């Protein structure tokens, strides 16, 4: 009996995808309120990234709907969903490898400003876009590497740049897919701070797929657990972590020190 108080920033209704006979995401209905940070956890192959792909449009759902602020975006291409406010960062670093870090971010800023269809201006006449991109690089502590191409950046710096691109899109919903994966231990706090910072500023809604339970505990307002493509638990961190189904399905093995 939940009373609908505000329109959720993001909602999925019965979201399902089948690959042949395999149901990778099975009837997942979930609402994400503005200003909350939700961690999506689950064992490998639980369907977390697939769920993300369905939400941001890289995959088309077999059934169900995706709504952004009440608007149905299920049939829109990824680019159109990005303009509706869905910002997606990727698990495997996914950047423009030969363009500079600044250009990577500037392209995201330019998309946000809807300036891509300007054909007869020189790109650098839009000082505002460049300055904004520089400010974001400053924010993710990559200002000194603005002219370096991602292919020569360290893995940790690539992850930071990925976060920078997401910030530059100014989405309503930030979707992070294991942002700290493969990072060295001393680099992890920087990225977590950035995510924390995003949450603190404005009323951004953050979805975070994460394996590290300490990270989840420290950041999340709410935890959603996926298991074999099905939503098996949903609630505040303490309750979810304590629930028997979660202990058995996932956390019981993972959390033990």
């Amino acid at each position, binding site marked *: 009996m939940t009373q609908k108080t505000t329109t959720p920033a993001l909602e999925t209704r019965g979201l399902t995808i089948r690959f042949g006979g395999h149901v990778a995401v099975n009837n997942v209905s979930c609402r994400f309120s503005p200003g909350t940070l939700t961690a999506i956890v689950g064992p490998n192959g639980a369907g977390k990234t697939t769920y993300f792909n369905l939400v941001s449009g890289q995959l088309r759902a077999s059934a169900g709907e995706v709504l952004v602020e009440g608007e149905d975006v299920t049939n829109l291409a990824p680019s159109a969903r990005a303009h509706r406010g869905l910002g997606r960062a990727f698990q495997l670093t996914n950047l423009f490898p030969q363009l500079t870090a600044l250009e990577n971010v500037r392209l995201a800023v330019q998309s946000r400003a809807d300036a891509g*269809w300007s054909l007869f201006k020189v790109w650098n006449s839009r000082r505002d876009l460049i300055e904004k991109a520089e400010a974001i690089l400053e924010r993710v502590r990559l200002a000194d590497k603005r002219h370096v191409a991602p292919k020569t950046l360290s893995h940790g710096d690539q992850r930071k740049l990925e976060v920078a691109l997401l910030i530059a899109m100014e989405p309503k919903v930030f979707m992070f897919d294991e942002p700290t994966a493969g990072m060295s231990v001393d680099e992890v706090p920087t990225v977590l701070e950035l995510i924390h910072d995003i949450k603190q500023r404005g009323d951004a809604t953050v979805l975070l797929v994460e394996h590290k339970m300490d990270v989840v505990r420290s950041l999340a307002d709410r935890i959603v657990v996926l298991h074999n493509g099905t939503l098996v638990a949903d609630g505040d961190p303490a309750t979810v972590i304590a629930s028997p189904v979660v202990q058995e399905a996932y956390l019981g093995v993972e959390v033990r020190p």
Partner: protein
Amino acid sequence: MTATPAIPASFDEARPRGGLLAGLLSSDMPRSRALSFILIAIVLVLALTPFLFSGSQPLSTAAKICVFIVLVASYDLLLGYSGIVSFAHTMFFGIGGYGIAIGLEKLGADWGSAAIGLVAALCTSAILAIAIGLLSLRVRAIFFSMITLAVASAMAVLASQMSGITGGEDGLSFQLPYALRPAFRPFAEPVFGVMINGRIVAYYLLFFVAMGMFLLMLRIVNSPFGRVLQAIRENEFRAEALGYRVVAYRTAASVISALAATVAGALLALWLRYNGPDTTLSFAIMIDILLMVVIGGMGTMYGAIIGAALFVLAQSYLQVLMEAGSKALAGIPLLPNLIHPDRWLLWLGALFVISVYAFPGGIVGRLRQGKRN
């Protein structure tokens, strides 16, 4: 195929420069002293050809270079900047040629007919480019290339079959508007010792339109739009996720490139007073374009100028050079035969294999690299 990174890391391209030149070149400077020098030399020689050389062959060679600068730059926009491999580029080149030819042949030799022909050709090219783009840019790159190949072949067959309109294999010869005919004399007196006639007027028409088209394309690849094309070339999946409609951008790039190729075809027809399947539609020209882009440097635009100039010069004068060499070496066994003018294609081929092998980033890439070291 991906282009080599064109921007050295130390170069701060984000700082806008003032000045007329930077504006004209859309802030995309040659960034190498040698390259600047070569470019200035080529453009200067092209600009002064009617005054520097006598006879019709140098002027024809220069005109052909102007046409190919536009054609090769438009292909670079597609291949080097957008990462699209199309084999239909000569089709658009041919449409431009036929537009002018049919217009002037059927409607009479005046500027109005030329304009009607050109506009009709531009519209045809745009519609075809949009159709090919929307139908096939969604599929994998290799299938797109195959589709362009099929469409281009079909068009070539069509052009040679519909002889009532296109003149078939014979092509169309036509009269130019009076101001472009050899008999036209705008000035009673020679200018700098050269009597200006309609041929020279036609040459300058080609030259200025070619330079204008080149600068326009240089602007487009350096616009916010051009930057999106490069992003799509690098990682189309990410570009889409950032909010860029990849299919729409690619289609737009195809259309722009097709329109520029159409203009190039129109210029060539104006110069030759003739258009036929062999001058604009043949697959051999497609291969020449590819070579010129790669030799000049993919994704650099300036490569088009160098590639076109070098290639056309080699095509026009390698035989002459070889004949001289062959005669000079007469008496020595084997050698005169080896560089007999009849073998010029062999040597042209060898030259290009060597240059592609030695400069993978093209001549422009090599010169810019040289500056950094």
